[in-house]
């Protein structure tokens, strides 16, 4: 496969850039920034698809990116396709339809870009890495071959990586490796599980011993309790013995005291209190009797009783005195105001009606009430008047307008029908730019005609006009091709015959020369010669026999045979000659054979030549026949043909010319048709224009249509304008007439409404005028005056009512004052009413003071009488209390009370002491009844008591308590141990940790297996690859290495290193061997390049060649080495396409000096 073309439709900085590639060596040169790398990326994107993220979308958006091109397989198949940036359906055919990846697979059997690149791509970096890798492998042959064969420049690193990763996971004796560590940690957790696990036996043993200890402790505790109880009993008795004795003594004293009346504790205090109260009471009774004797003098009859009896009447009059005085002053003033109001009312009435008096005014009150109706009517009158006036004005204006319109209409010209003209114009317009079209067509036809004539002049072999040319019956193209093939076949045969003839002649000459050479170097005996001589010898023997044995006379035959010699000598001579010939045939057998072969060859060659000549003659005949036949085909057109090949070219031209002439004729016909069409349009338009007397059809010099159209259009627009105006005027007139009718109607309406209004007005205002007509504007004023008149009348009436009221009040006041004076103080009867009331008020105040004093004395007397009664009751109470005390003390006299109190106190003291003693006993007995305690004490000998107590204490303290403590501690310990066995999860948690470690170990172990298997397979494969490819590839490599190092190395060899592994060594021309470690890095790069190129060349021998794509691999090489490398590439390019991308002009210049056997193309990417 090779790349025939690469199209950068839209990629990076490129738009529609195409590189035409093809077989041979291609150098794609682009200085920095010129897009060399972009082109390389585009190539990869085209073949293998766009990467997910690209930086080549800065000019064309992602969805616009497009690269394409054409691939060519070795068998000649081609595939053109495009690639866009899409995840699916990114491959497009030239027709824009998606292609499947299968279509590509037929050309590009490797779909993985990385694999393709490693096999068929090589960059400067790969070269450096490859060189370093060779150093790292120390020239190990297998790895070097495999890495160059697969294009992997870091194989050593991969192998080492697999080993070191596996080793980091596990080694048999390691401790710090991941798996080793995890295994150790796992063992540790297993131990924790074992240690933390509790066996059921342990638990049960511990549980049993705990139960036993608990039982023992219980027994000891019981014993301890019994002894402790006894000791406490004895101790108690010892402590309570004195209290028991005291109790008995107190009981005896109480018995001695006999029967006693027990008095309450407060008895003595109560008695003393009663006696003190009686004494105080006697003194208070004496004081009160004295006070009562004094009060009786203060009571007598009052002198002011009459005034006090009329108290309310006097007070009332005194209050009304102020109003009385005011009324006297106001009365005359009010009367004046009333008269004034009445006269004003009369004035107002006069302004309305002078024919009636104030007394008759009530007859006008209904009119005054219709104020609202009158107002409305007045307002309506005004509206109606205005409406009528406006309507009349409108009507006048409309009529004036109609007159104006009629005038204008009369001035317009007469109407004409323009439909015909309009149609003619439209048809002409529709024909479009027919004038320009016709001119252009005519010019085109002229040009074509001229071209055709020129072409016909140029066409040799034939002359004449176009029509004649078209009618020529030319032979078919296929016929000519057929003859061409036939003539070619003849010529080829002729050539073959000639070639064969030359060959035969040459061979014949060689054979003749051989014969001549043999002949010159001495005669060579032949079989024929031997046969001849033998027959002569036999003839001699026959003659001799006849003569000698049969005695026959030979009669001259012998002489003829002997040729002067006697027969026996002649025979002997022949005999000897035959032997000699036979011997020579035997001795010189080789020579004889060669000679014979040459002669046979000469014979056969001569025959072959004869045959060949016959064939040549036949061929010439056939060719003459063919030629005649060929010419006959051209007879009908009177042409004497040249060779078919020339005639083929002639015919192609003639056919093309014929096509052009036919095309020209079509154009001419079309031109004529169009002209006719235009003429028709023109006459139609002229006819229409002539109908309008004022218009003369415009004359057009070249028969053009356009001026006529313009004229028609102008006329049309003028006619249209007039008609438009007319219709506008008519419309306006109709409108005005309608408005006039409407205005008339409105005017009638207004008149009718006014009449109606007048009728209503008369009805409403009749009373107001008293027979006189009232104008609507005047009515308001009249009503206002009437209302003022009524208001004033109302005011006068109210004033009259007030004056009457005030006169009545004065009269009543004076009557009341006089009547009261007669009753209380007759002395002041003759005085004015105001004076009388003032004197009466003074008298009343004096009477009130006197009454207050008497009331106070009476109150005090009543209180003192009540106090006398209370003192009596208090005395009775105290005396009964004293009697009760005597009864309590056992019915004694009051004088005996004190002695009784003393006996009672003594008894009380004894009882309290006894109770105290018994309380102490009960507390000390600890719940035992006193009687039982007394019983126990009676049984015990007080003297033996301390000893008994001491014995018990010793037993408890020294024997029972330590034992109890020991068991308690034991139980505590067991319990603690058992509590430790509490169902905890320590072992379970360790097991969980173990499970986590197992998971880790499992993962790592699987990884280890993968790494180990991978390393094993890879090594095996490297070895297999080496054994298959070593011999041929190293042979080529050696040659390349020699060339690339400019002969500084003679080549390469395999040697064995210290471990007995095959390694690569370079050989100097003097056979000195150089290990790769000793080579310079540049040389190692050359070695890697040689290996890669060799692998590639070897690969091409068995596989479809693929383009070899190199990225600036000669950057570091000097000119001489670059030249050497380019030379190798140019040779390689004869077998497969080689594309070298470079930034360096130097490389291009070097390449241009090469003579590339298969062609060299330089592609410049820069501007």
């Amino acid at each position, binding site marked *: 496969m090779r790349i025939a073309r690469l199209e950068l439709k839209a990629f990076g900085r490129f738009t529609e850039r195409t590189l035409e590639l093809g077989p041979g060596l291609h150098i794609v040169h682009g200085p920095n920034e010129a897009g060399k790398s972009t082109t390389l990326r585009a190539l990869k994107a085209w073949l*293998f*698809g766009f990467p*997910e*993220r690209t930086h080549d979308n800065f000019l064309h958006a992602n969805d616009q990116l497009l690269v394409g091109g054409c691939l060519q397989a070795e068998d000649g198949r081609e595939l053109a396709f495009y690639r866009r940036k899409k*995840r699916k359906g990114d491959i497009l055919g030239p027709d824009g339809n998606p292609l499947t*990846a299968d279509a590509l*697979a037929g050309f590009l059997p*490797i*779909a*993985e*870009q990385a*694999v393709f*690149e*490693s096999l068929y791509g090589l960059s400067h970096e790969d070269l450096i890495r490859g060189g370093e890798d060779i150093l790292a492998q120390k020239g190990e042959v297998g790895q070097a071959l495999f890495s160059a064969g*697969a294009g*992997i420049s870091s194989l050593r690193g991969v192998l080492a*990586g697999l080993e070191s990763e596996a080793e980091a996971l596990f080694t*048999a004796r390691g401790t710090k490796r991941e*798996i080793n560590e995890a295994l150790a940690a796992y063992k540790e957790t297993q131990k924790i599980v074992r240690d933390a*696990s*509790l*066996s059921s*036996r342990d*638990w*049960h043993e511990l549980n049993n011993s705990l139960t036993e200890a608990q039982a023992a402790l219980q027994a000891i505790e019981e014993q301890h309790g019994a002894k402790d109880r006894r000791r406490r009993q004895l101790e108690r008795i010892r402590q309570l013995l004195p209290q028991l004795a005291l109790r008995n003594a107190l009981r005896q004293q109480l018995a001695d005291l006999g029967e006693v009346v027990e008095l309450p504790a407060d008895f003595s205090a109560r008695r003393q209190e009663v006696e003190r109260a009686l004494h105080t009471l006697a003194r208070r009774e004496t004081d009160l009797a004295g006070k009562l004797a004094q009060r009786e003098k203060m009571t007598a009859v009052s002198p002011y009783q009459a005034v006090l009896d009329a108290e309310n009447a006097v007070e009332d009059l005194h209050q009304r005195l102020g109003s009385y005085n005011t009324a006297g002053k106001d009365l005359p003033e009010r009367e004046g105001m009333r008269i004034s109001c009445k006269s004003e009312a009369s004035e107002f009435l006069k302004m309305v009606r002078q024919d009636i008096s104030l007394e008759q005014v009530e007859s006008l009150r209904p009119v005054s009430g219709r104020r609202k109706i009158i107002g409305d009517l007045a307002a309506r009158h005004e509206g109606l008047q205005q409406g009528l006036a406006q309507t009349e004005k409108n009507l006048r204006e409309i009529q004036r307008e109609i007159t104006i319109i009629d005038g204008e209409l009369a001035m317009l010209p007469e109407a004409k029908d323009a439909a015909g003209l309009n149609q003619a114009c439209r048809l002409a317009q529709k024909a479009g730019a027919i004038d320009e079209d016709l001119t252009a067509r005519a010019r085109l036809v002229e040009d074509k005609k001229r071209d055709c004539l020129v072409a016909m002049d140029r066409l040799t072999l034939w002359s004449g006009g176009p029509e004649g040319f078209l009618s020529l019956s030319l032979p078919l193209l296929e016929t000519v091709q057929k003859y061409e093939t036939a003539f070619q076949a003849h010529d080829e045969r002729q050539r073959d015959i000639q070639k064969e003839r030359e060959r035969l002649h040459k061979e014949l000459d060689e054979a003749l020369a051989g014969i001549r050479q043999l002949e010159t170097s001495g005669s060579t005996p032949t079989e024929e010669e031997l046969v001849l001589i033998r027959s002569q010898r036999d003839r001699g023997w026959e003659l001799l026999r006849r003569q000698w044995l049969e005695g026959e006379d030979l009669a001259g035959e012998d002489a003829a045979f002997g040729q002067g010699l006697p027969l026996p000598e002649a025979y002997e001579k022949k005999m000897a000659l035959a032997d000699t010939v036979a011997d020579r045939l035997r001795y010189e057998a080789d020579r004889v054979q060669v000679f014979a072969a040459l002669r046979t060859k000469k014979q056969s060659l001569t025959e072959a030549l004869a045959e060949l000549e016959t064939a040549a003659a036949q061929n010439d005949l056939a060719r003459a026949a063919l030629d005649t036949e060929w010419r006959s085909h051209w007879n009908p057109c009177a042409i004497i043909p040249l060779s078919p090949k020339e005639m083929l070219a002639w015919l192609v031209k003639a056919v093309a010319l014929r096509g052009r002439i036919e095309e020209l004729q079509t154009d001419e016909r079309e031109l004529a048709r169009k002209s006719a069409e235009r003429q028709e349009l023109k006459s139609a338009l002229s006819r229409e224009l002539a109908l309008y007397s004022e218009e003369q059809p415009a004359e057009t010099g070249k028969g053009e249509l356009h001026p006529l159209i313009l004229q028609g259009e102008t006329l049309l627009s003028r006619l249209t304008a007039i008609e438009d105006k007319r219709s506008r005027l008519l419309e306006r007139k109709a409108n005005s007439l309608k408005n006039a009718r409407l205005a008339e109607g409105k005017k009638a309406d207004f008149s009718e409404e006014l009449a109606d209004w007048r009728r209503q007005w008369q009805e409403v205002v009749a009373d107001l005028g008293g027979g006189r007509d009232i104008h609507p504007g005047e009515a308001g004023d009249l009503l206002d005056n009437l209302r003022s008149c009524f208001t004033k009348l109302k005011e006068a009436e109210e004033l009259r009512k007030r004056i009457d009221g005030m006169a009545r009040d004065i009269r009543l006041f004076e009557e009341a004052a006089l009547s009261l004076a007669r009753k209380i103080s007759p002395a002041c009867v003759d005085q004015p009413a105001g004076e009388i009331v003032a004197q009466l008020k003074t008298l009343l105040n004096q009477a009130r003071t006197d009454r207050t004093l008497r009331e106070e004395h009476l109150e005090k007397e009543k209180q003192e009488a009540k106090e006398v009664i209370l003192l009596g009751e208090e005395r009775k109470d105290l005396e009964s209390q004293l009697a009760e005390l005597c009864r309590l003390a056992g019915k004694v006299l009051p004088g005996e009370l004190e002695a009784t109190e003393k006996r009672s106190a003594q008894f009380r003291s004894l009882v309290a002491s006894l109770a105290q003693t018994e309380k102490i006993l009960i507390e000390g007995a600890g719940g035992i009844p006193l009687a039982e305690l007394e019983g126990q004490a009676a049984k015990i000998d007080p003297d033996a008591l301390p000893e008994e107590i001491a014995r018990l204490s010793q037993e408890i303290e020294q024997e029972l308590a330590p034992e109890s403590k020991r068991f308690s501690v034991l139980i505590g310990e067991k319990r603690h141990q058992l509590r430790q*066995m*509490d*169902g905890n*999860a*320590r*072992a*379970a*948690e360790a*097991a*969980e*940790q*173990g*499970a*986590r470690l*197992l*998971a*880790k*170990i*499992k993962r790592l*172990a*699987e990884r*280890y*297996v*993968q*790494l*180990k*298997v*991978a390393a*094993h*397979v890879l090594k*095996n*494969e490297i070895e*297999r*690859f080496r054994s298959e490819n070593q011999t041929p590839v190293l042979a080529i490599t050696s040659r390349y290495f020699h060339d690339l190092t400019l002969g500084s190395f003679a080549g390469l060899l395999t040697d064995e290193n210290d471990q007995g592994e095959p390694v690569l060594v370079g050989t100097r021309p003097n056979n000195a061997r150089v290990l790769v470690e000793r080579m310079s890095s540049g040389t190692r790069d050359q070695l890697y390049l040689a290996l890669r190129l060799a692998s590639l060349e070897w690969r091409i021998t068995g*596989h479809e060649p693929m383009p070899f794509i190199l990225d600036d691999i000669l950057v570091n090489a000097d000119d001489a080495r670059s030249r050497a490398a380019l030379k190798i590439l140019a040779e390689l390019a004869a077998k497969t396409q080689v594309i070298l991308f470079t930034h360096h002009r130097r490389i291009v210049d070097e390449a241009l000096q090469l003579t590339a056997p298969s062609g060299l193309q330089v592609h410049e990417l820069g501007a």
Partner: protein
Amino acid sequence: MFTFLHAADIHLDSPLRGLEAYADAPVDQLRQATRRAFDNLIDLAIEERVAFVLLSGDLYDGEWKDYNTGLFFIDRISRLRKENIRVFLASGNHDAASQISKGLRLPDNVHLFSTKQPETVLIEALGVAVHGQGYHTRALAENLARNYPQALPDYLNIGLLHTSLTGREGHEPYAPCSLDDVLARGYAYWALGHVHTREEVSRSPWVVFPGNIQGRHIHEAGAKGATLVRVEEGRIAAVEHRDLDVLRWAMCRVDLSACATVDMALDTVRQAMEAEQSRADGRPVALRLQLTGESPIHAELHRDSAPLTEEFRALAAGLGEMWLEKVVFATRRPVTLNESLGAETPMADLVRAIERLDFRPESLLELVPEIGILQSKLPPELLHGGGLIPASQASRADSLCEEVKEMLLARLLGQGGSR
């Protein structure tokens, strides 16, 4: 009306398997998972005021010897005793093998069924008859169900049995019996144990495997718990599953065929993880991530499987209580290796060499003796399946072949090769 609770296969103190510790892994949240799940069972019983609890075998893990586990069980059962809740226990194969169950004195609210013959306990107050028999030996091959008595009339009959019936995948066929065998007894409810996946084998009458109460490895994924049964008027009115697990195992398959970049893949994985987490109702999740699909980034995933695994772990840690058990890189190439590598390239030859390699354990151990050395050092627990290269699991060998292929391709084609 009353309720009872049916659970089985507690496997107390059996550790969670396959969870490798790593930084940010929620180790503390997953301690003593089986114990805490059992605590949940006790809490549920008390909360629901159940009349009794049925435990259908495998209380302990067979090889586990720590008596503390038994003491823990007693302590928790004592809580039920305080609430007057009875417990019926029929031992299973693991219990028969367990050292713990032998010496344990059970509280008086527990009835342990005989291992010699079927036994019947009557609860007169509820009108219930409970029939059951335990295992006397680990590998019990007899059909126990056939010897159970016929249902007692006028009682609600319940049968306790540790069996896998006619067999369930991944479970030993102990105490084999057919469904017909158990149905023939005429009981209203069969409380089975042994199968770790919940299954209502029959609904009329009820034959139920409640599943275990806590998943312990990735093959026990999904919700785990007990079955709560409501009885009304002497009939079973409702059978409900209740979650008890404290950690949810989840198999999370993520199709990466639509992911064109690693970032998109990470995003897709994060969404899938979030979905799993929300399904776990607030529990911590132990997740196995299985990446599938014809992925454009297949090669990249394989090349960077180690750092990517770290990234996925970080994603899990970022989500809170999630433990990434394992990442299985099971994506496929969008283009076959044959097409990718061409027909006769050295890389294609290498791939063919890997495919031709004999992955049977005996051959591989001979070719690469270091594997044997490692294997000899591994604890026996890891070698249950037959060692590092198990012959029985064909898929494992296939996946080893795939891993080796992808590992070599990624390394040989290097960084420059991938798009």
